[in-house]
């Protein structure tokens, strides 16, 4: 438990918790980006440079901005009631807490063998590229098709119906 880990964990948890609990939706998105940047820093700390920067590029550069755009276009930036009725809120939080309790119990009782990391493994872009082109070439192609389909699908879905009919 080093200070840097605790700091990054605190940033991540604060950001995500704020994202899930703030009233103003734009504040939620901004807090979410804070949490995701903290998460990316954790990836970097674990030695996964490529994933860390991809995380920033995709989540901060695209997903957060998309969410902000959606908030603007659906006029839900004005703060509304915090959430559903208090009973749903209570039971939702309770379920989440229970899930956390179960997971924490499993983690604390199960992973004693893997507590100490080995020497820093090398995960250079070169190796990742080779792995993507050899062992993981099929998933890569599938992801390519998925992304293309998502691109077209999102465009068609978001298009105005009147224009689609033309």
């Amino acid at each position, binding site marked *: 438990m080093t200070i840097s880990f605790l700091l990054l964990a605190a940033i991540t948890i604060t950001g995500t918790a704020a994202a899930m609990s703030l009233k103003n939706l*734009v*504040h939620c998105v*901004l807090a979410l*980006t804070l949490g995701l940047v903290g998460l990316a820093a954790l990836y970097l700390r674990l030695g996964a*440079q*490529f994933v860390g*920067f*991809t995380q*920033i*590029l995709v989540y*901060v*550069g*695209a997903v*957060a*901005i998309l969410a*902000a*755009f959606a908030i*603007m276009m659906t006029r839900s*930036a004005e703060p509304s009631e915090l959430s559903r009725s208090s009973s749903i809120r209570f039971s939702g939080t309770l379920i989440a807490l229970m899930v956390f309790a179960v997971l924490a119990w499993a983690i604390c009782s199960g992973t004693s063998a893997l507590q100490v990391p080995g020497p820093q493994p090398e995960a*250079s*872009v*070169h190796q990742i590229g080779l792995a993507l082109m050899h062992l993981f070439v099929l998933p890569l192609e599938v992801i390519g098709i998925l992304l293309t389909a998502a691109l077209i699908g999102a465009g068609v879905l978001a298009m105005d119906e009147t224009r689609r009919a033309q």
Partner: protein
Amino acid sequence: MPEMIDQIFVLLKHWLMAYVPGTLQPIASAVLSVVPVLIAFPLLFAITTVLERKGLGRMQNRYGPNRVGPFGILQPMADGIKSLTKEDIIPRTADQAVHFLAPVMLVIASFLVYAVLPIGKNMVIANLNTGVLFFFAVGSMVELSVFMAGWSSRSKYSLLGAMRAIAQMISYEMPLVLASVVVIMAAGSLSTVTIVNMQASYTRIWPHWYVFTPWGLTGFVLFMIAATAESNRCPFDMPEGESEIIAGYYIEYSGFKFALFFLGEYLGMFATSAMAITLFLGGWAAPFSFLTWIPSYVWFFAKLLTIIMAFIWIRGTLPRLRMDQLMNFAWKFMLPLSLINIVGAGVWHFMPAGFARWLIVSLLVVVSCALLSRGLRRGKSFYVRTYRFAS
């Protein structure tokens, strides 16, 4: 001796580091690398503003600023003092925290990207394995700060400006990244230092810059167009179109925060220009083998200034695009052409060296460029405009 002058800053740093106690070494090393960059590029910003205003003035048949100091070269100082002493106004309904954080975040993001730019031989703050990816990842944080600025001001103009800016930046980020992919393919690395080293060799006197290949030239042109759009400069300055939405997303800012936005914008422009130099124009490498005695950082800044001049020239020439033209250009011309360019780079890589691959790849690029530009023009119905109420 030229070697010595070339490495003078590196040697200076090593010499200074010898006096630092061991525990402070990492921090001192970081400070000694970062501080020169933090000084050099804002200084370049100051020089660029006055050069830009003078150059634009000359292009528009007028003198630029010529009052403060000899030939007006002290104008940036006057501007700086003015913006520092101006009142800092925050709109009453603005979101205080976000309104404050936006310019800070913009400047931080703009400065962060300089970490991976090699400004000379052995002169880079961090030689990251994923340098180019880092550049684009941190560059995308600029969009978020633009959104924060536009939304938190609670002004229609700034919100419109921010929306335009984000739409434009997202659209042009794709051609920007795809145009640089060809270089990454050729160099086989995401590290900026490796990419420059690959280009810093010569056949007889000619350098191995990527811009001297058909795909490299196309990639360079696409990259520069996308970089212009990315840094919101004319002719892509829709987000801050002075005549429509005054200053766009930073209209509600005043005083020093306004200056910070200005600084961030120019730093972004320098960073993308420096990236274009690194990727296509050989970074700090000299253009001819007999000129290698000139220090590498001189070459880097000479190339950077040339590209800045080109930016100013473009700004003095072209009118602003319309939103639909902007989007059509990004999605119907830039994106397909950059994809075809990647195919061209692949063909180049797998064909034997010689005249044939030059011909084939050039043909591929030129034909697709011509077809795509025809496609852009088609569907555009020109008609004689009639002014019903004027005559």
